[in-house]
């Protein structure tokens, strides 16, 4: 198993150290400060930012797949919510049918009582 760190992380650490050097040598060692700043900017603009931009694109593709996956799962939940809604709707229909049947049977009972 390789213990090698991601080159981006190594270079980012170097850039951070260069920035710290630039900051700490300001007002004290102008030449060292300018050199550190120049190296930091080169590392950032030449390597690190392009790597980051490329990673953004890679991740964007991953997000596209994730969105579709999340939508499928949310649709499943939504179906279950609708399924429950339909059950409740059925009980309402049964109750309505019973009401109609009640009216019909009441009329039939009255008719039978008349004859």
């Amino acid at each position, binding site marked *: 198993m390789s213990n090698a760190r991601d080159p981006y992380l190594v270079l980012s650490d170097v850039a951070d150290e260069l920035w710290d050097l630039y900051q700490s040598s300001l007002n004290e060692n102008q030449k060292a400060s300018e050199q550190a700043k120049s190296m930091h900017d080169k590392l950032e603009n030449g390597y690190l930012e392009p790597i980051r931009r490329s990673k953004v694109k890679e991740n964007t593709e991953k997000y596209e797949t994730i969105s579709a996956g999340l939508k499928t799962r949310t649709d499943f939940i939504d179906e279950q919510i609708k399924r429950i809604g339909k059950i409740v709707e059925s009980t309402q229909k*049964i109750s309505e049918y019973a009401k109609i049947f009640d009216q019909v*049977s009441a009329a039939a009972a009255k008719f039978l009582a008349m004859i």
Partner: protein
Amino acid sequence: MGLLCQRITSQPLSSKKRLTGLWVQRQKLFAIITLLLLTLISSCSSTSRMAGPLTAFSSATGEAAVATKAGIETLQNVDLEKSAHDASKKTELSERLFSPFLSIGDVHQRLLVLDALSMYATKMKQLAGIDKTEEIKKNFDDLGASLDSISKSIQNVPGVEHKLPDGVFEALAKIGQELVNLHVANIRDKAISAGLKKTDPLITQTCALIASEFSGPHGIFYDQLQTSYRTLQSSINETFKSSKDYQARSKASNDYGLLLKKKELGLALFDSIANSYLKIGKAHNAILLQAKENIKSDDALNNLTAQIEYTKFIYSQLVK
């Protein structure tokens, strides 16, 4: 109805007496069965036991999405300022100099994921909070009343001597109501478990990906924001160095101080957003465990809520 009337009225007198005894016995048996059934099924609660955790999860996910969108907007704004500074050093302006770190498509896909995550959490909360007991009760009360009325109509038919025991339809409707409640609760609870189980790996992946971009150091968003702020620091420093009068130097110095504060808060916000998503992932795992094995998810949810509160605090400081 006609058949029923015919059967009852055509019984001989001795048989009618036996039938009356049988009715009384049946009524008692019916009452016992009703009581047993109601005791067995009345344990079903109106909302799921997962309603509380899923409500907390949904709320945290929604708030994290708001902070994340604000984070992306901050990154875009600071990135634009950085581009403007970089361009000011060139002899001519061009489109390439203002190529944004995040394209419209990059932002759009991230916002879609945040919305999809919030929507999933909202639907889970909605599912767990389903409480149709009142609606079902009303429907069965109406059904019981209609059946009772039908029964009375039958009894009013001339020749029908045997009355149906009182409360039969009311009890039947109550049993029906409880059975439907139980069925609904069963579907709901199974759907919650299935939803959590199916989605958990995807939630973990999503949260890890978002966190990897915002975490510091060296998440790509975190680092880009830091670089942009560093560029702006250099820009103000150059202004400071080139200024001759005290007022201009004082203004540059003040701007530098404010920028450092914004940088600190911006980076803290990004790191907090990353931690929020790691905790959202863990909270989802914990809720799944609670649904499967009834192990409480309180600790994971409390950690998540605390992290979200911290994120909101940093954001409120940043927009001051």
